[in-house]
């Protein structure tokens, strides 16, 4: 079954890398995968978005048409991308930057992804890996170990421990968000 994941935010947040890691994990799990991106000419700043399409069969259209899963990490990305989310889809917002969202027919999760990266791990730079942990836990899209393995295969040797902890922090934050939701 075709599943579309869209990751959107600001250039420099590492969302394209997160998308590549997600796509590599899905590839290693034997799925057909297509990963694409849109970004401006800037190295940092500007909008940046990335799509990953995962399917058991051959993928005809390689970009996201109507994402099943959407992660937004900036106010602008939230405004632009949320209207395109599939009805009944999963919406993950980095509540560090996305404070409010338009009404969406989706399962909405507000998780302070960038704040977790900065406060718990001391590096906002790993917010993208925290986000992958959150996404893995909230969506069950791919096995945790496949995603974590893809993260570790992509990052420099000396940052492996930091990235492992970032992924775990994301998973933990998502677990917490789910508990809050269930008890509410």
């Amino acid at each position, binding site marked *: 079954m075709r599943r579309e994941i869209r990751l959107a935010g600001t250039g420099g947040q590492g969302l394209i890398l997160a998308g590549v890691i997600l796509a590599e994990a899905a590839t290693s799990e034997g799925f*057909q*995968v*297509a990963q694409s991106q*849109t970004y401006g000419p800037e190295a940092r700043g500007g909008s940046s978005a990335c799509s990953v399409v995962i399917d058991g069969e051959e993928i*005809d*259209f*390689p970009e996201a*048409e109507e994402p099943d899963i959407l992660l937004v990490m900036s106010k602008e990305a939230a405004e632009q991308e949320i209207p395109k989310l599939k009805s009944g889809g999963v919406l993950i917002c980095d509540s560090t930057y996305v404070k409010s969202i338009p009404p969406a027919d989706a399962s909405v999760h507000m998780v302070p992804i960038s704040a977790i990266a900065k406060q718990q791990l001391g590096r906002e730079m790993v917010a993208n890996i925290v986000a992958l942990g959150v996404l893995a836990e909230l969506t069950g899209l791919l096995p945790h170990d496949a995603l974590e393995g893809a993260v570790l295969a992509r990052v420099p040797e000396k940052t492996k421990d930091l990235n492992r902890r970032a992924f775990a922090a994301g998973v933990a934050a998502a677990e917490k968000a789910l508990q809050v939701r269930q008890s509410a």
Partner: protein
Amino acid sequence: MTPSHKQRLVQGNEACVEGAITAGMRFYAGYPITPSTEIAELCSRKLPAVGGTFIQMEDEIGSIAAVLGASAAGMKAMTATSGPGFSLMQENIGYAAMAEIPCVIVNVQRQGPSTGVATAPAQGDVMQAIWGTHGDHPVVVLSPASVKEMYELTARAFNLAEQFRVPVVLLADEVIAHLRESVVLDRETLPFPIVQRKKPSVSPSQYLPFKADADGVPPMANLGDGYRSQFTGLVHDEAGFPSTRPEVVNSLIRRLHHKLEDNRQQIASFEAVHLDDAELVIVAYGSMARAAIAATRLAQERGLRLGVFRPVTLHPFPHEELVTAAARARAILVPEMNLGQLVLEVQRLTAGRCPVVGWSYVRGELPTPDLVLTQALRLLEAEEEYEDLLQLAALVRDDIVRPDWWLEQEWGA
């Protein structure tokens, strides 16, 4: 599957480099430009490891010139660029066509004209790729629509360049170049063998560098191999010396064309998707074909018969097969990320067998399948409503085919 056949996530530009190296490319000269930069970057890393040479040149004019020099000396050589650089290369692409120097030029199309939008896809260089350099000249233009095809068509580009001694343009677009897909790329999975250029079978004293064999292609000695080779952009005789004699001019210009035209069946290729029973045919190439093929899936869900004719070679064009499809279809839609380029060829080749309407999408992004389907449905509606659609089969230079507006404004009905 054995480990070597394991699928990997590969980017289009990366697949292009792997295809080139598989085909035997050992020389790359280029000037990096978005969205082709990864090709230069990867060549700089991978070529030294296989005994090849990478040179970052001062500009694109130098790049193509270096490629031609390397090829004349016997190397399989390539350069990659985007619109602005492709414009600069035109003069020497003509030189390659005239001097019959095999070479591969990758143009990853971005939104133009001029520097346009560096990171946005477009298909605005179709006519330039075919007709960009002055004078009648032979050139092959290939249009990849997937990462796997970036690999295969780059390898095929070398085969065609070497076999026919022509410049071959791999006309990609930003979507396919930057797309990453799960693929198995192996020399063993290539659907054709690797071709080497034809060498002289005569001794140096008997060698005439531009005396063609029956296939229209002269055997090519490497510079430095002891054969007397003479290269010039001037019209030349079989010995390679300039000539203005009308019969020499005539025979050279015609031979340069016939070596491709006479082998068109062997060169021209296309993909057909649900074409046999299609009432509406979408002719689409490159990334646009992916949207069109997905649109046929959406159409099937609605019980509509849409088919896709995807030319893989934009030049020479697989025109017999297109004409057959046109004779069966109610109408043809040609969606393009430009203001209507290949649609003109499709109209010319199908010569009124059915209405051919273009759809221009120039927003610097790939349209969704849903948008392509919407245009297809509008065209079918229009075809039903207006019997004399043939005279209306003109290009609509807009995002949307609007038959009412089109009739009132353009045709006074």
